[in-house]
């Protein structure tokens, strides 16, 4: 595999670190002037949508849904509503909430190449004929002052003014319908059966796209769809950002072509450090994968899924063998239970219960029967929520039970192989402080 030139996060030729392009002049010096995108009229999308379609771009927020199809859906419902003369124009929301604690790619992107994201918002808004645009980062985010400054530089440049919005930092608040709900006059809670592309923010057709997806659109607007698809695998082309964490020498965000061998990704982060007992893919709504399965695969949606994982928003975390996977999972499960909107029973009652089950097992107070009961409960939690929060958390736990089955059985027999007394999986500070039932503080 040939190494690919980073597109979104180009490196400084001297230091090798990602260039700081917060100033518009630095941005234009590297990427050239902003692309000119014709504005959609008469309910028809502009030609950029064909380039995006040809590019094969898929959403980088976690779902990997084809971007052009989502844009077409917004255009069609906007046209239908106009025909019904209830027509207020479409809205674009850039999602940089980054609810996954192990993800930092949107923050890295917005603190290095923020103008690319905003140009992407402009290009998308013009293409679908949107009249309002929002950029969402979570409340208290260190990005807020940076983006205020960036947006101030662009005053008078952008056709559609971009408003910075800051919904609460809760995990489910970054879910598409919750974000759309909050951007309008609702709360930051998921809406069951919502179709934001049809009736989104305050009932308007709403295009929600991840910040990285929009940055790719800005480059497709400059260079075309064929250029975009010249990197990566055919069914999910392009480059993509990966947040690499845990037991690697240099954790951080790197940009790779889709389809890159996972070993290449790890090597670019200085390689794994020490013995690894498994990998977390896709974050706390993602899936654990065994070391062998993951290290022999490539980083694209299909091969990672075949290995038992999920790319999600591009998270890859190596769990060192010195950590107890049950303690790690119990702590994260309790945190995820606290991040629920609490609207649906299986999530509100199911997640704290399975987190408790994990804590019991982690505390070596559980039996084989407790493992069976936990698996039964996990099976009953999925597909019954208004959003995918319970499903993602259940997958995180059930794949962990599977990946670390030997250590789980070891715990049921009263033993734990861990030697470390600190945790590998990050939990945001200042939010829900879970305590293990076995009495050990989870810090």
């Amino acid at each position, binding site marked *: 595999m040939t190494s690919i030139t980073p597109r979104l996060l180009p490196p400084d030729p001297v230091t090798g670190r990602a260039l700081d392009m917060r100033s518009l002049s630095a941005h234009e010096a590297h990427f050239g002037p902003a692309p000119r995108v014709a504005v959609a009229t008469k309910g028809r999308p502009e030609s950029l949508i064909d380039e995006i379609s040809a590019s094969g771009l898929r959403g980088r927020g976690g779902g990997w849904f084809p971007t052009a199809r989502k844009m077409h859906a917004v255009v069609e419902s906007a046209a239908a509503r106009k025909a019904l003369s209830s027509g207020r124009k479409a809205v674009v929301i850039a999602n940089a909430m980054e609810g996954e604690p192990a993800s930092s790619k949107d923050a890295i992107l917005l603190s290095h190449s923020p103008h690319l994201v905003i140009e992407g918002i402009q290009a998308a808004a013009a293409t679908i004929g949107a009249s309002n645009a929002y950029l969402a980062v979570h409340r208290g985010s260190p990005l807020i002052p940076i983006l205020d400054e960036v947006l101030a530089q662009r005053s008078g440049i952008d056709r559609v003014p971009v408003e910075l919005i800051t919904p609460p930092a809760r995990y489910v608040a970054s879910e598409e319908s919750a974000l759309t709900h909050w951007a309008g006059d609702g709360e930051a*809670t*998921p*809406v*069951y*059966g919502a179709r934001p592309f049809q009736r989104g923010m305050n009932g308007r057709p709403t295009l929600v796209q991840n910040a990285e997806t929009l940055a790719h659109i800005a480059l497709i607007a400059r260079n075309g769809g064929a250029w975009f698809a010249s990197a990566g695998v055919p069914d999910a082309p392009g480059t993509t950002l990966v947040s690499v964490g845990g037991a690697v020498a240099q954790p951080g965000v790197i940009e790779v072509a889709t389809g890159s061998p996972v070993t290449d990704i790890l090597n670019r982060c200085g390689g794994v450090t020490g013995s690894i007992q498994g990998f977390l893919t896709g974050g706390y709504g993602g899936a654990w994968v065994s070391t062998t399965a993951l290290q022999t695969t490539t980083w694209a949606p299909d091969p990672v899924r075949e290995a038992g994982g999920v790319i999600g928003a591009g998270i890859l975390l190596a769990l060192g063998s010195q950590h107890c996977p049950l303690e790690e999972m119990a702590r994260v499960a309790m945190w995820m239970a606290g991040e629920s909107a609490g*609207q*649906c*029973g*299986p999530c509100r*009652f*199911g997640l704290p219960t399975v987190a408790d089950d994990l804590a019991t097992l982690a505390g070596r107070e559980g039996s084989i029967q407790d493992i069976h009961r936990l698996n039964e*409960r996990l099976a*009953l939690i999925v*597909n*019954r*929520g*208004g959003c995918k929060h319970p499903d993602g958390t259940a997958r995180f736990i059930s794949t962990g039970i599977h990946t670390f089955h030997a250590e789980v059985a070891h715990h049921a027999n009263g033993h734990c192989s861990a030697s470390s007394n600190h945790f590998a999986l990050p939990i945001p500070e200042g939010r829900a402080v879970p305590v293990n039932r076995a009495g050990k503080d989870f810090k």
Partner: protein
Amino acid sequence: MNHPRPGLSKLRLDPTVCDAHGFCAEVLPELITLDEWEFPVFISGGLTVEVPHELLGEAKRAVSACPVLALRLSKED
């Protein structure tokens, strides 16, 4: 994913509204059981379940028995 058969009615649960009153499972035990927290579980495992013609009357009763209107019966997908 359920593959709907044309003509069959579907019972649909809004889980964000459901408050575990449990009347639906009493009226329609053929299609609905309750989990350990007394929230309904459809035999389909999801949030919609196809209603056979012979259970249509019970399904309608289940819909009207729900105090928070969390159940809907519909013909379309």
